[in-house]
């Protein structure tokens, strides 16, 4: 469990282009940050840097635990949940297989996975192949995964886009619960989130 994420003077480059420089942000336990910015500003890139996929060209990313900074790579494997533009679900497999695998892989178990599915209202869909799910159902499946295993930091990339109004409200509730339990959320969004958040803009 971590108590804060500290981003200091971060600079990220993609290809030949520096997307942004001197980006600083601190997220404490129980806090949610909505990341906004134009298309191509670098929201996804920032999330990927936090998750450890991109190496920043300058600045630092620190995961702070109860006793100070943690080794970043270990911390990531223990605390990060990510739902990106690509959801990592295999079209040819059943929703149940995918959910249970992904829950277990991040430290959850089968009952937790089924409970998460129930929570998101997709129990009925679990025996379908992922390929036949509607866009919103599929996103709910991806979100069920992060409910199924408790990890402190949620990195979400436009999590609500394909969801209907009821599901958005539900995800709002789930986010609130996560924050109340000391979790953190960093979400890249174009539309406002259904919870109270601090908004941070990325400018190139």
């Amino acid at each position, binding site marked *: 469990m971590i108590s804060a994420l500290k981003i200091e003077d971060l600079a990220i480059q993609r290809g030949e282009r520096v997307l942004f420089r001197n980006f600083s942000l601190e997220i404490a336990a129980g806090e949610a940050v909505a990341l906004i910015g134009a298309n191509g500003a670098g929201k996804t890139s920032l999330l990927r840097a936090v998750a450890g*996929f991109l190496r920043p060209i300058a600045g630092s990313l620190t995961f702070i635990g109860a006793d100070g900074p943690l080794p970043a790579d270990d911390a990531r494997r223990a605390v990060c949940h*990510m739902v990106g533009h*690509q*959801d*990592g679900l295999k079209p*040819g*497999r059943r929703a149940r*297989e995918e959910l249970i695998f992904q829950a277990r892989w991040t430290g959850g178990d089968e009952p937790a996975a089924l409970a998460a599915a129930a929570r998101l209202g997709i129990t009925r869909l679990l025996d379908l192949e992922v390929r036949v799910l509607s866009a919103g159902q599929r996103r709910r499946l991806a979100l069920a995964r992060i409910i199924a295993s408790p990890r402190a930091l949620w990195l979400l990339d436009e999590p609500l886009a394909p969801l209907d109004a009821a599901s958005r409200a539900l995800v709002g509730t789930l986010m609130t619960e996560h924050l109340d339990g000391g979790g953190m959320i960093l979400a890249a969004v174009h539309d406002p989130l259904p919870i109270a958040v601090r908004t941070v803009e990325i400018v190139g």
Partner: protein
Amino acid sequence: MTVLMVLIRRELSLAWARGGGALLAVGFFVAAAVMLPLSLGPAPARLAAVSAGVTWVVLSLASLLSLDRMFERDFDDGALDLLALGPLPLEVVAAVKCLAQWTVSGAPLSIAAPVVAVALGARPEAAPMIFVAAALGGLAFAFLGGTGAALALASRRGGVLIAVIVLPLLTPPVIFGGAAISNFADRLPWITAVSLLAAYALACVALTPFAMAGACRNAQS
């Protein structure tokens, strides 16, 4: 169930679906073996002389089938990102993928190989060595193929690259295996060739996961 077991089960089932698993590889292999006498015409003696060697080559090719997609799907659909955030390092994930590939295609192939070779007229005495060579060689093929597949991830010309990258690396085990089989059948000393093959396969198993993980991280960034 440990998380490693969870991963192994998933990769096995994906490997099976991906390449058609055992059935495709073995079917392909048996079909090739059946076609061989058909296309040579019935001349048992001619065939028998080369059956072990031909079997070995066809086998090495069959085990390359669908290798190229080992990482591509996971990369394209984002599953590789999720795997990277799990408890086991990508090196282990890569090794498990290759082992799964080997289990669903290499292992069945190495059982089919001696049968096919003998059916084509190889001396039955050679069968055990064909099995050993196929099993060890298959291991090397799976890990080298995986390396090529991972390296090609970041590029626009995946397939070509895999060929250019992997084929040279495959040559040594093919040579070692071929030598082991023919020496064994001819009652010549075969220990060196088998040891070399085993050493090469083990080196692949031990070293290429690092290359694969590095290549995957590079593509993800």
